[in-house]
């Protein structure tokens, strides 16, 4: 079992708690990596804003299907449960959150980005891609809810989910899915996300109020994840 240190790193830049998903691979989300990210999120206490970024070519390419293939079936729900827990943690975080989509974000990786308050994305490279329709995988209600609430435009949602459009940052900005496209390399995207997070932190908002407003804006997503988070970082298998 890899140590969580090799799955993501944590640093503070000013008031911003920056989490970077590390590795030259495609940052697949399995219970171990998800637990590591949850721990990193939990370590944000005292910060004014949070950024999650990726290094290399990928933000995250989605769930670790290799892991699922080899894991006993009663643990499959664990991956879904741990992901819900991470989203619950992000939703109840008492500070603004910004996703720095530094590379490809597909399926659960795309959903993870959408679970933040704001999304900045690398302009020159990388796609936002809900790959499920092409992969022949049905979308569970919580994912669909996340896309429904964060991408309210019916046409954008249809093109994303039903046509599997691979959207560049410019396209995603045009459709209102992403807030800004950033020129340059990975580090430029991270800096832009941190700068945005710093601006949000500078507003000096009451963190608990931020969390409550967030839950009120996207209540259906919150209702589907709230029973999973707010507990120990270790995933609990659900049968």
């Amino acid at each position, binding site marked *: 079992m890899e140590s969580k240190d090799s799955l993501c790193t944590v640093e503070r830049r000013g008031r911003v708690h920056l989490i970077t998903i590390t590795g030259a691979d495609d940052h697949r989300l399995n219970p171990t990596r998800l637990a590591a990210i949850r721990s990193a999120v939990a370590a944000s206490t005292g910060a004014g804003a949070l950024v999650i970024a990726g290094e290399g070519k990928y933000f995250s390419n989605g769930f670790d*299907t290799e892991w*699922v*293939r080899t894991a006993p*079936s009663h643990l*499959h*729900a664990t991956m*879904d449960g741990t992901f819900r827990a991470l989203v619950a943690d992000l939703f109840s975080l008492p500070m603004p959150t910004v996703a720095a989509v530094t590379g490809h974000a597909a399926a659960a990786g795309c959903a993870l980005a959408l679970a933040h308050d704001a999304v900045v994305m690398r302009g020159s490279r990388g796609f936002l891609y809900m790959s*499920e*329709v*092409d992969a*022949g*995988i*049905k*979308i*569970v*209600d*919580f*994912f*669909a809810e996340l*896309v*429904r609430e964060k991408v*309210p*435009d*019916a*046409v954008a*949602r*249809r093109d994303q*989910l*039903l*046509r*599997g459009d691979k959207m560049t940052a410019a396209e995603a900005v045009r459709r209102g899915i992403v807030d800004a496209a950033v020129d340059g390399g990975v580090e430029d995207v991270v800096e832009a996300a941190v700068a945005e997070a710093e601006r949000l932190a500078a507003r000096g908002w009451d963190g608990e109020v931020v969390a409550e407003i967030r839950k009120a804006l996207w209540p259906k997503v919150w209702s589907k994840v709230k029973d999973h988070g707010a507990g120990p970082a270790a995933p609990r298998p659900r049968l």
Partner: protein
Amino acid sequence: MCTLEQRGRVFVLTLTGDGEHRLGHALISSLRSAVASAAEAAAKAGPGSALVTVGEGRFFSNGLDIGWAGTSRARLGELVDALRPLAADLLALPMPTVAALTGHASAGGFLLALCHDYRIMRGDRGVLYMSEVDIGLPLPPYFGAVLRAKITSANALRDVALRGKKVKAAEGKEMGIVDAVYPSAAETAAEAFKFAEQLAARKWNGGVYASIRMSMFPEACRSVGIVEESDEEKRKHFASKL
């Protein structure tokens, strides 16, 4: 009333004749039959089908057969109830669906057009029109649900349902109701067919496609009577693919 033909992997459903294609019991029945045949044939053929629906003449469909209903509320209620399962058939259809709007689509006809995944419309003439407010008929609940699912700009929804706006293709595109506009009926039909071929060529698994479509608007699906698949069933499907 209607015909179904298969051209390659695309099923073409045509509302035949020069009339208004008013949705009465007979036409609704024929349409349901045709749609079911398409689904059955697609299931046998494997992944990679699509449906195009088109009306001959000046109309896609001018709505329910209110002529037949006359002053009978019971009859009108029957037609409203009869259309609902056809809407459900389309929303649950295991293949991409394209409405080729070569003519007017009003009320129930507009609803049917909205029940397709994509709308391709002629730009030179023809309107989309939710006429109920002008006629003095309330919207059946499932009409409201489908409108809310497909027209997500609040102002566009208001203009369509509460102002009885007659929407031409170009405006429809701006409002997010129409996906592509072509200058004539012939081009509209041809491009709609080509587009459907491109969708079919993606070779999406029909059951998965329908499941993802339904997950986009569960309220509308419930409203037309579709029973939602549980997350548990979806996960079993996922596990079975590994």
